[in-house]
């Protein structure tokens, strides 16, 4: 795999992106921070910190969270920023998106994202 030009993603950046994604998935599951914290076995403050990107989570906690949210673990993992691998679109296409459209894309589950990538690569089936 070719090395990305953007360079290594920083620890802070991963935590920030993860936190944002987790907050979205939690609210999609209609769970309050408190209810979610109880289920995971962490304090509400910890969840707040994690969602704000101020605290990392360990791998086991990640699986527990996915289990509680009834999601694939992959649905909790943010893609590389601007990566054509994590996104159904090319860098070029991504650059042209407005913030609203980026938000729409981030809302997709990993399964939906995979489908969109498959579509992007699919050969058009012409009528006659």
């Amino acid at each position: 795999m070719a090395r990305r030009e953007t360079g290594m993603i920083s620890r802070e950046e991963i935590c920030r992106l993860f936190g944002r994604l987790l907050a979205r998935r939690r609210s999609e599951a209609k769970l309050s921070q408190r209810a979610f914290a109880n289920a995971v076995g962490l304090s509400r403050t910890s969840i707040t910190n994690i969602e704000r990107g101020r605290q990392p989570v360990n791998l086991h906690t990640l699986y527990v969270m996915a289990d509680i949210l009834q999601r694939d673990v992959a649905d909790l993992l943010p893609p590389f920023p601007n990566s054509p691998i994590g996104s159904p679109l090319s860098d070029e296409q991504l650059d042209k998106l407005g913030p609203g459209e980026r938000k729409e894309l981030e809302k997709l589950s990993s399964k939906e994202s995979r489908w969109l990538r498959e579509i992007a690569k699919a050969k058009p089936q012409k009528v006659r």
Partner: protein
Amino acid sequence: MAKRNSEGKAPEGEVATLEIKKIRDKVETLLKQSRISKPPVPVQKIAENLGLDVRYAPFEGDLSGALVRGDGEAYIGVNSLHHPNRQRFSIAHELGHYMLHKGMKVHVDKDFHVNWRDDDSSKAINRDEIEANRFAAELLMPTRFLVRDIEELKSVNQEIAHTLAKRYKVSSQAMRIRLGNFGFIVPE
């Protein structure tokens, strides 16, 4: 017909009269350009005439279609696991977004009937979806063709609705809703 307020805005779930006229005119133009004079309307061919590729991939679940617009290319994605009639509706729905909602570069439709909650822009998104649905209904069951088929009728029963659905290659449900636009209530 539902009541309208003084600004002429349609109640939620409906498209304003003016919008319907706009949508109908766009559909008419498309049908004329593609020289289509009878059902079933070849939606994929119309998409291709507009320069839109139609691509298929399977998805287990409610995801029905997508519209992607880049500089040089634009395409419609369809869930190949859905019933062919539903695939036709999905293509028509995405064509609706393409014709009516210029801003969207990437748009994925999970379920047209979903109420988009807890989102700042939920109202606007909802309106776009309703308009795209109306466009799809007008394109698959054009007023001009459908009026020909039903003008002599006093009422529509299930059997007639079913026959019409087959002729237009749409689901019975889609036909039932469409007949409602013309004041026909089909008994369940």
